[in-house]
């Protein structure tokens, strides 16, 4: 069967792509999608370790991570709609009113 480290490497590659996306892209929606990608990478590591240790706690934790991600997306997208109403676009560079 496939070694555990392969799954972890895939997880790390996806996490890094998410981090690069958050750092590089300026559109708030794309930044949100990159956050989802990072959640997904962490979930993959959880599932791989759950099989490695023959323990279901990892899978239950992934379930909770998915729930929290759903809540986060709902609130985040609502914030984005609110920002779009006041600013007219959702570039994160435009949201700089609090900058000193």
């Amino acid at each position: 069967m496939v070694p555990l480290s392969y799954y972890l490497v895939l997880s790390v590659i996806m996490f890094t792509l998410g981090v690069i996306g958050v750092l590089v892209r300026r559109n708030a929606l794309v930044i949100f999608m990159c956050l989802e990608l990072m959640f997904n990478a962490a979930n993959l590591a959880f599932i791989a370790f759950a099989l490695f240790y023959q323990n279901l706690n990892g899978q239950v934790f992934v379930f909770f991570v998915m729930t929290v991600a759903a809540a986060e997306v709902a609130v985040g997208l609502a914030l984005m709609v609110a920002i779009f109403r006041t600013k007219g676009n959702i570039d994160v560079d435009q949201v700089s009113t609090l900058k000193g």
Partner: protein
Amino acid sequence: MNPGILFFLVLAIIAIAAAVAMLFSRNAVYSALFLVVNFSTIAVIYLTLGAPFIALVQITVYAGAIMVLFLFVIMLLGAERLSAREPLTWQRPLAILLGVAMLGEVVYVFLFRAGLNVPLSIPTPTFGSPTEIGLDLFNRYLLPFEVTSVLLLVAMVGAIILTRVEKIKRPGGQATRDEATREQAMKDQAIKDQAIRDQVTRQ
């Protein structure tokens, strides 16, 4: 190379390609659809890892509900065309460089150092089945489960409050512009309805 590793490599390449395409596509709708591809591929990997319940939750909740929410907001805001002008200049290569450096370090540790290079066992048919997850979820993790439901409720209320159109009356009792236009629209609609009704009765 055994078929298990081959299967994993094909899935991994699809997942990474979809993630890269999501990162660099210029249209937010394409980004969302590439992310759906990535989520579905990861769900198949979950199936091979003995997590059928989580795999199906991934498809229904992530690739289904959450991404539909994303697409809905993208199309609602009309933000699918992303600006070609990126104000970042020197930060972008630096970010990619640092990201690749992190990737290299962690891959080195995982592959050559941490002793994680052991093959995974083949999961038993009952491992990760809905029955087992349910038993765990409703016995050992009952309190977190309930707290999660409160969290979802709070998120729902928060989303409704954040997107609500403020109805602020001016001190003079004058309605705000939003409200005035809405009232005007309702009046227009009532006039139209009346006209249609007149026509029907005349016939």
